[in-house]
C-alpha cells in the first residue's frame, strides 16, 4: 500500500496481457498504475502544471470515472495514462509495461493491440462506412481483410449495430455513431477502453443507453473502462469515482 494525495491506493502488481478478454471482477489485479505522474505544459515562465504528481491504480475489470471541473486535468490524466501524451515525470504502467519509456512507434503498436478509445466527438471517418471504421485498427495492425471484416461485424453485433454496418457515419444518429466508436474500441479485443466524455454530445436517453452498453461490456466481458466525464449520472454507474482538482486527485468514491 502507498499513500498518494492523501488517498490509500492499491499497489499494482505486474500483470501479463491476457490472451483474450475474460470476465473478471474488480480486484483481479491492477492493470493501470500511475506513479507520481506530472505533466507540465508551456515554457519560458508560463508553465502550467496540468498533473501534479498523480498516482493511481486501476484494477482489471474495473470501471472508473474521473470527474472534476473543466481544466482540472481529467483529460490530461487520460491522455498520459493511455500513452496518447508524454508525461513530464513519473511512470505509467499498463499491464506491467512501462509505456512512458517506449518509443512513439512501440507505444502506438501497444495502443493498437491493448487499448480502445471512445471520444465525445466520435471521430469516425466520414468517408468510410461503419464497418470500415470499426475494422480500421485491425487493418493497420496487419490483420487479414477477411478476418478484420468478420471481427468488425462481430464488434458491431456486440453494440447492436450489425445491420447498420454499411452505412456512413452521416447516415447514423448520434447514439449510433457513439456505438460505432465503442465497437471500434472493442474490435482489437483490448483490455482497457479509455472514454473521454463519451456521453457529452448525447441527449440523456441516448447517454443512458451508451453507459448501459459500457456497463454490460464491463460486466460480461471484464473490460476495464476509464471514463472521463462531467456527468454525475455516468459516474454513478461506475465502480469508482476519482475526483480531481487542479491536476491532483483529491477524493475517491468507491460505489461498488
Amino acid at each position, binding site marked *: 500500500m502507498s499513500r498518494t494525495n492523501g488517498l490509500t491506493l492499491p499497489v499494482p502488481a505486474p500483470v501479463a496481457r491476457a490472451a483474450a478478454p475474460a470476465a473478471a471482477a474488480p480486484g483481479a489485479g491492477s492493470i493501470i498504475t500511475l506513479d507520481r505522474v506530472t505533466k507540465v505544459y508551456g515554457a519560458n515562465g508560463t508553465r502550467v502544471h496540468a498533473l501534479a504528481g498523480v498516482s493511481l491504480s486501476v484494477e482489471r475489470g474495473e470501471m472508473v470515472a474521473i470527474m472534476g471541473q473543466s481544466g482540472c486535468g481529467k483529460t490530461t490524466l487520460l491522455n498520459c495514462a493511455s500513452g496518447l501524451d508524454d508525461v513530464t515525470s513519473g511512470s505509467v504502467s499498463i499491464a506491467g509495461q512501462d509505456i512512458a519509456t517506449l518509443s512513439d512507434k512501440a507505444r502506438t503498436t501497444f*495502443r493498437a493491440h491493448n487499448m480502445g478509445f471512445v471520444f465525445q466527438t466520435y*471521430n469516425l471517418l466520414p468517408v468510410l462506412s461503419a464497418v470500415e471504421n470499426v475494422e480500421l485498427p485491425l487493418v493497420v495492425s496487419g490483420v487479414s*481483410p*477477411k478476418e478484420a471484416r468478420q471481427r468488425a461485424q462481430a464488434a458491431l453485433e456486440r453494440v447492436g449495430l450489425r445491420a447498420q454496418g454499411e452505412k456512413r457515419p452521416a447516415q447514423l444518429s448520434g447514439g449510433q455513431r457513439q456505438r460505432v466508436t465503442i465497437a471500434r474500441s472493442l474490435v482489437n479485443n483490448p483490455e482497457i477502453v479509455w472514454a*473521454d466524455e463519451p456521453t457529452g454530445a448525447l441527449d440523456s436517453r441516448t447517454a443512458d443507453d451508451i453507459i448501459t452498453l459500457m456497463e454490460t461490456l464491463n460486466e460480461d466481458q471484464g473490460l476495464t473502462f476509464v471514463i472521463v466525464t462531467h456527468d454525475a449520472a455516468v459516474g454513478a454507474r461506475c465502480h469508482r469515482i476519482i475526483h480531481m482538482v487542479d491536476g491532483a486527485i483529491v477524493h475517491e468514491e468507491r460505489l461498488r
Partner: protein
Amino acid sequence: MNELFGIPTVTIMATLVALLGVALATVAAIGVGNRTMFRMAMRNIPRRGLQTVLVVSGLSLATLITTASFVTGDTIDHSLTRDTYRLLGRSDIDITWNGEREFSSDGGAYGDGARAFVSDAVVPALEAHFAGDRDIETFLPFLNRPVAATNQRSQRSTPDVALTGVDAARMDRAGGLRLLSGGTALLGSLRPGEAYLSERAARDLRAEAGDTVTVFASGTTRDFRVAGIVEDELASGVLGLRYSRVPGGLVVPLDEARAVLGLKGNEIDALTVSLRGDARSTVGAGEAAADRIERYLTGEGAGLFAQAGGLESDRTVEVFPVKADLVAQAELYGNMFTTLFLVLGLFSMAAGVMLIFMIFVMLAAERKAEMGMARAVGAHRGHLVQSFIAEGVMYSLLAGAIGVALGAASAFGMTRGLLPLVGGEYFALIEFSMTPVSLVIGYSLGVVITFITVVFASLKVSHVNIVAAIRQLPEESRREARRKTRWAWVAAGVPALVVPPLGLWFIARKGFGLPWAWIVAPSGIALGAVLILAGRAGGVLFPFALGMSIIPLSVAALARYHGVPSRPLWTVTGILLGAYWLLPPGTHDRLFGEFTSDIEMFVLSGIMIVVSFTLVIVFNARLLTRMFSSQGGLMRYAPSAAVGFVAVAAGLAGAIIGERGDGLGQLAYLLAGVVGLAAVLAWSAVRFPALAPAMKMAIAYPLSNRFRTGMTIAMFSIIVFSLTVFSILLANFDSAFLGGDARGNLDIIATANAVEPIPDLAGVADGSGIAGRGAATLPTGATFVRETTSGDAPMPYPVLGADDGFFSSLAPSLDAFATGYGTPAEVLAAVRDGANLALADNAVIGVNYSDRYEWTAEGVQVDDHRFAPFTLEVTNAATGEVRTVTVVGILKATLPADYIGGIYLNERDYAGFAGQPVYSRVYLRLHDAADAETVASDIESALATRGVQAESVTKILRDAGAQSLAFNRMFQAFMGLGLVVGIAGLGVIAFRSVVERRQQIGMLRAIGYQRTTVTLTFLLESSFVAAMGILSGIAGGAVLARNLLTSEAFTEGATIQFAVPWAELVAMAAIAMLFSLGMTWLPSRGASRVPVAEALRYE
C-alpha cells in the same frame, strides 16, 4: 517592346497604374474609414509565417507570368535591335536594283542569285544632288561576290567567302570598319595585297592578322595578307544577322575586288546610304531620307541608274530605310513573343486566379470562428469584405514585387539558359534586357488581377452563419428562396440600367429578391444565345463555341436550384461539354457550318475541356473506391482483375488499330495506360491490405469538398492540357517536317557559289556510295508566280531548271501528285519529257515551316496525297518572259526554302523561260550503306577551293530542328511555369487538410496508425488530386491534339501520322507528380507529427 495587341505599351502601363491606384485607394479608404477592420487585416498577415509564405508565393504567380512574358519580349527586341546596329553600322538606307535584301532571314541577304551590276558613276551623281541634305552624309558603294579561300598557315579552306569591295575613301569618311581588337580599321591604310577579314571568315579559316589567304575566283588565284580582323557587319561583307548562315567577308578596296573578279573597272552591286550621326541616332531619320531619295529616283533622277549606272531599263531601283525597318521588325518580334507568351500564359493565369481564390477560401475557413464573433458583436458583412480586401491587397503588393523578380529571373533562364543550351550558336545573339515599362506593367497587371480576384473571393467568403461559425459547425446549405419585393430598389434600378449589370442587379436581386440561380442562369442562357447568334452571323467560332458552352452550364445551375440531384446533373453537363469540345474532325463543320478561328480557341477549348473533365471527375471519382475491395478469398482480386481486363482490352485495341495515322490506336494505348494504373492500385490494395483504407480515404476525402478539389484538379489539368497539346503538336510537326521522311529521298546537297558553275561531281561520286544525282539552277530572285485561277498579282517565287538526272536518277520522293498519274515515277517522267509541266516544293501547298516566300497556292485541295493539276503563270522579271506551267507533283523534302524552294521545270522549258540553265546545285541520293556526312565532307574538302559547299540533308534538318526545338522548349518551359501554380494549390489544400483534420489525425494515431501511415495517407490524397489533374489534362490534350492533327483544316493538307511523344508526356507527368509530392511532403509530415493528445482536444 512598344505595343501589345496594337495598344502602345505606355498606354497599357498608364491604365494599369491607374487601376493599381484604385486598389491602393480602396485600401487607404478602408484604413481611414474602418481602422479596426484594417488593423485586424494587417495583424493577420504575420500570424502564421509559413502560411504567409505560401499565400505570397501563390499570389506572386500571376505577376511572375506577366513579367516573364514582357521581359522575354524585351530581350528578343533588344537582342535583334542590337544585332541590327552591329550589322548595318553606318549604313541606314539600302538602294537596290536586285530586289529587297532580306538581312533578317536565316539565309541572310547573300546569294540571292544573279545580281546585276551598275556603274559607280551613280554615286557622285547622287552625292551631288543630296549635297545639302540635312540627314544624308554619304553614299557607300559595295561589290559582294562569293569566292573560295584557303588560309596558307592553317591550311583551312572555305568554299564561300564574300569578297567585298568597299570605296575606301567614303567608307573611311563614314568611320571605317571596327577592328575586333578595338579601334578603327581604315581601308585607306591598306597596302596593295592586303585585306581585312571579318570575324566569321577568320573563324572559318582559323586566320589571324598577318596570315596569307589565297582567294580562288574566275579560275585564278590571288593572295592577300590579312591586315586585321574586323567585326562582322554589312560593310565587312557579312550580309545577315548573327544567326544567319551567311559566310564571312574578305574586305578590300573596290578596285582590288574588281581586279580579282576580272571586272572592267567601275561595277558595283550594292549601294547604301549613311546618315549624319552615329549608328543608333540615325534610325529616326531613315524613313524620311529614304522617301527623299526615292522621290528623286522616280522623278528628277529617274534615268540616273540607266544612264550613269548602265542598268538595264527593266530593272527597278528601290530604296529601303533598312535600319529603321530592321529595328521596327525587332520590336515586332519582341511584341510577338510577348503576345504569344501572354496568350499561352492565360492558362497559367487562369490557374493562378483559381489559386488566389482558394487561398482566400482557406484563410476564411481558418478564421471562421473569428469572423462569426466579429459578426456576432455587430460587424457587417461589408466589414469582413473590407478586412479581406485590405489583407489581400497587402499580400498582393508584396507578392507583386516577388513575382516581378521571379518573372525576370525566369525570362533570363529561358532566353539566356534554355535557348542557347538547346539551340546552340543560333541564339548567340541573345542578350538579356528588361525595360522599366515592362516591369511596371508586369507588377501592376499581377497586382490588379490579384486585387480583382481578392474582391470576388472576399465577397464569397464573407457569407457566414454566425452560430455555425462560432461553434465551428459545418454550414448548412439551404436553398435560397426568393425574397420580398422592394419597390424602391426596382425604381432605383431603372435609371441604373445605364450601366446594365448594375441596373439588372438592383432590379433582379435587390428589388425582386430573386435567388442567385434565377439571376445567373437566365443571364447565362441569354448571353449564350446572343454569342451563338453573333458567332453564326460573323462566322467566328469563338463566340459561337463560348455560347454553346455557357448554355448547358447555365441550364444545369438552374436545374440544380430546383432540386435535380447534383451528381447525374453535373455529370451529364460535363459529358455534353466534353462531347462538344472533342467532336471528331469535321463533325463540327457538318453540324454547325464553317467558322474562322485562331489561337484564342486553343485557350477556350483548354478551359472548357478541363471544366468538362473536372465535373465528371469530382462527381464520379468516388466510384474508384470500389476497386479497393474488402472481400475475402479470391473474390477480393475481382475488382483489380476487372479493371486490368479493361486495360488489356484497350491495349489490344490499340495494337489492332495500330499506326493507322488517325490516332485512335495511340488513344487506346493512353486509355490502357491510365486504366492499367488503376488496376495496379486496386491490386496493391488487396496485396497490401493496410494500404486499402489509406487509398479509400485518399479518394474519398478530397471528394468530400468538391469545390476545393475541383479547383485544384482544374489547375493541374489546364496546365498539363496545354503542355500535352503543345508537345504532341510539336512532336508530330517535327516528325513530319524534320524526321526521316522529311529528307524526301535526298541525302546531300552540294552548292557552288553564285559565280562558279558546279563542277562535275562524277569523279568524287565514284566509289562514294552515290546512288543517284540531279542538278538544278539556283534561284535568281527575279521570277514571279501566280495561280492562273486567282486574280492576285504575281509574287516572288523561284522558278528553277532541273536536269534530266533530277527527274530520273535522283528520283526525289513526292508528297502528293496530280490525278491522272498512276505513280510518282510517271509524274517525274512526264515533267522530264513533257512540255510546261512542273514540280513544286511543298511550301507551295503550305506544308513546311519555311516562311522565306510569302506566296502559296491557295486554290489547291490535297486529298489523300492527290490533287487536281493546277496551273501557274510564271514570269521572268529579267526577260519579261511569261509562261503557263502545270504543276503535277509536290516534292516531299521539307528542307528550308534556301535549299529546295521553287517551281522545277525541265531544262528545255527552263531554257526557253530564262536561258541556258547554269547548274549550280546538285542533289545526291546515296546507297543505304553510305554515310551522308562523310560523303559531304569528302566532296567539300575535294572541291572547297572551287567554291563547292556540300551538306548532309540530315544535318540540314537537324540544324533547322535545333532552332525550332529551342523555341519550343522555351514555350514549354514557360507554360510549365503554370505547373508551379497547380503545385502551390495542392500545397494550400494539404496544409488546410491538416488543420481541418487534426482531431481525425489524433484518433488515427490513438487507434494505432503509425506516423509513417499518417504521412502516407496524406501523400496519397495529394497524389490522387495531382494524378486526376495530370491524367485528365493528358487525356483531354491528347484527344484534342489528335482531332487537330487529323483535321485537314488544321494541317492544311499535310499528311501527319499522329503519334504521341510518350517519353515526353511520361516525363512531364512524373516531374509534375514528383514536385507535387515534394510540395505536400511537408504538411503530410507535419500531420504525422501532430501531438496526439493535443489533436484530440476539443472545446
